[in-house]
């Protein structure tokens, strides 16, 4: 009975559901169809055999990965960088959304919002090229400024002392505006009467944020946090590929880059697929675990 009611409702709002279609098609084509290729991780991939005709190899490539002498280093680096991005980068969009919400001049708010979105649309290759120009030891404006102020120039890029700051900082700069959109939407949905009630109770602006705004975005923040945990084994290949060099290889080699290098540069497609699958399985386990914890602790969960 409930099921037929659901279908009736869906049919009633079919036009809205139609907007789901491109998203579903996208997920089907780019997320589900490629699952067929996962079998390559268990085969000795050949150009002629392809996905289905290459001979089976069992767990050979997983074993090779676990025996790889930099396995622990790569895993450790991936987790450290992802954790830093998550725990430093995750609250930033919430902070930005709250700050934007507190701006009273709509024109100024919109301008800041638009400017903060822009980096999201710039590719990493452009961002890194800009960073190389700005932060270069040889004539970069940042170092020129430091020298003009009587300070020593600093090698910001490809330097272990500045590596994490550069990686996390550039990631936040690029994603903060875009990621704040969803929180802006959540804040816009908060009942204004709650703010009025808080005001009557004598709450100042800070108290209103603390007792009304933050609880208002809590649920969406938890959901996004659970989803972010799923990417813990993925530190971002474009950024790390471009911003890590031989000087920072000891702390900057991550799983994503290892997959790209072994698959595309070395032509070891089965091995790369095995590493990628390992990465995904760990991600799935983490999502399930965090989802369970979140459900117990806060009653908010994905499923």
């Amino acid at each position, binding site marked *: 009975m409930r099921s037929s009611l659901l279908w009736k409702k869906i049919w009633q709002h079919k036009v809205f559901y139609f907007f789901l279609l491109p998203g579903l098609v996208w997920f089907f084509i780019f997320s589900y169809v490629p699952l067929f290729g996962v079998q390559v991780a268990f085969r000795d991939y050949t*150009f002629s055999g392809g996905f289905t005709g290459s001979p089976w190899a069992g767990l050979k490539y997983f074993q090779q990965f676990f025996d*790889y*002498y930099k396995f622990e280093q790569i895993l450790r680096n991936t987790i450290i960088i992802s954790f830093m991005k998550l725990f430093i980068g995750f609250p930033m969009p919430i902070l930005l959304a709250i700050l934007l919400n507190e701006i009273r001049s709509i024109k100024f708010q919109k301008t800041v919002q638009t400017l903060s979105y822009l980096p999201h649309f710039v590719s990493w290759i452009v961002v890194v090229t800009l960073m190389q120009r700005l932060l270069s*030891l*040889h004539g970069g404006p940042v170092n020129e400024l430091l020298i003009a102020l009587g300070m020593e120039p600093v090698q910001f890029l490809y330097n272990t002392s500045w590596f994490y700051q550069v990686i996390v900082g550039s990631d936040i700069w690029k994603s903060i505006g875009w990621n704040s959109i969803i929180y802006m939407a959540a804040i816009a949905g908060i009942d204004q009467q709650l703010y009025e009630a808080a005001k009557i109770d004598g709450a100042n602006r800070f108290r209103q944020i603390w007792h009304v705004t933050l609880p208002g975005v809590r649920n969406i923040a938890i959901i996004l946090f659970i989803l972010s945990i799923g990417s813990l084994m993925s530190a971002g290949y474009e950024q790390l590929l471009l911003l890590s060099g031989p000087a920072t290889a000891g702390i900057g080699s991550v799983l994503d880059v290892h997959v790209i290098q072994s698959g595309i540069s070395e032509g070891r497609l089965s091995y790369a697929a095995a590493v990628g699958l390992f990465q995904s399985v760990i991600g799935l386990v983490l999502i399930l675990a965090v989802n369970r914890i979140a459900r117990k602790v806060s009653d908010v969960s994905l499923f």
Partner: protein
Amino acid sequence: MRNLGLKGAKLFLAAVLFSGVLAGCANKDDANNEVSDGGASGTKEVTLKVLHNWNGSSGAEMDMTPVEKVIKEKTGVTVEWEYTTGSETEKVNAIFATQDLPDIYTGPAWGGELDGIIKAAKEDQLVDFSDKLDKYPNLAKSIAKENVPPALYEKGIDAYDGKKYLLLQNQPATDKDGTDWLYGFYVRKDIAEAVGVDPQSVKTKDEFYQFLKKIKDANLQANGQPVIPLGGFSNGWAVGIANTMFYGGAGYVDNGDGTIENSFFSKGYDDYTLYYRKLLSEGLLDAEAFTQTDPIAKEKIVQGRVAILAAHYPAILDATKEYVKANPGSDFIPVGPLERAGAEPDRPVDLGIQGNNVTAITKACKDVDAALRLLDYLASDEGFMLVRYGVQGVHWDMENGKPTAKKEWFDKFAADTSGKLTARKNEGLEIGFSSMSGMDRINSVAGGDIWLDQERIAAMDNARKILRPNGIKVITAYNPGDVIIKSDKWEMLKPSMDKTNDAWKEAVYAKSDEAALKILNELREQMRKTGYDEAMKFTNENLKGKEVVTMQLPN
């Protein structure tokens, strides 16, 4: 009703937009797959896509250059070029993995690129043309056993049970041919004078270090920036060429007991790594040398911010042309000749001149005969001269039996100092055809490089006199690298062996000598774990009694 119509219109619009997106993603190659009859020469006209897998190569600004017009008249083939910008090895792996194949592949005859194309041949991705070679004599000649170095012949040409998939190009046809690229360290003349060092007095590694230190201590400025003592081009090319001062420079070293070892395991390799670590940590080597892009590297050079460059001489002459023109006396001249580990003072320089390019027809080729016709024509003497010199009667003439450049074109090409060779490319030169023009016959059949200006010839001759006092010796011995791959441990070992260059660079940037050696030793341990000792045993057994390459300079 009105709402319904509006909804319908919205749905229609959404569907149109969505289908537009899908259509935009569709393959548009169909437009280029035209095959039609009746060219000017009566042969079938066809457009073939050629992947020129050389990083940074580029084409003309127009679709059909004068040279391409002649090629079309002669063969009926119009070439649609694709050039690689990035790693050649990645490109060769990517085209076969994604099956986004060109009609003809042409690219480097070494390293991962060669391994990738041989793998493709073994997995039926290329066209076997062994039964057609009798119709194409120029191609047959270019891969005849006597015209290909033995190890390469066994590895890439005659490695498929009688089938033939690969063509080799640019191996010297005679002793008079073949190019010595004059790899080395080159210093700006004015800087050497400013620090009071005669570049030819620098012979040993310690003298080279002292020379760099003097440049740094002189606190020279260029364009408002400190001058970098030692730099290179993009991604570290070819900064590491001082390796020949520490071991033979080849991939393998002689143990002195009748066996060989991978040079990565030698003491010389440790010393070489620590030497570079010292240069880097003392600010003598550009800290960005291994990570910089080509534009950034060239920007430093054209602004006069690099004192010593490591590369081959033609690249340096091209990159510094503009700067030298604006700053007379700032031309780059050779340093050394530097000592070579284990070489007698009168030993000629050992160079590998064995052809730098392989070409194959992929299984996706829409007209194999047209592809062979094109390649055979390019490998003919007429084709060779066309793609090296341009169109006879237009760009050059035969005078007294010798090809001679027309002054108008010589001046036009010489005036192009940008280093991009745009003027030449727009005539159809330097756009990729010369990679596929058979054996190098530039001196024996043609008449030398007619487009070289006198200044450049003089500079090259001067560098040759300095760097090659005992001449050169073309390497004909066996390369252990071609034998070790036949070991049954190779599949396990290769991934570790592929990491040696990465480990070296990482070690150069290490915080201490101990940390640097630890990085090298960890990889050595991994190589041993993945079958290095067994693979070397196999290599040594197979090379017993044969002459093996253990001394080699880059070329």
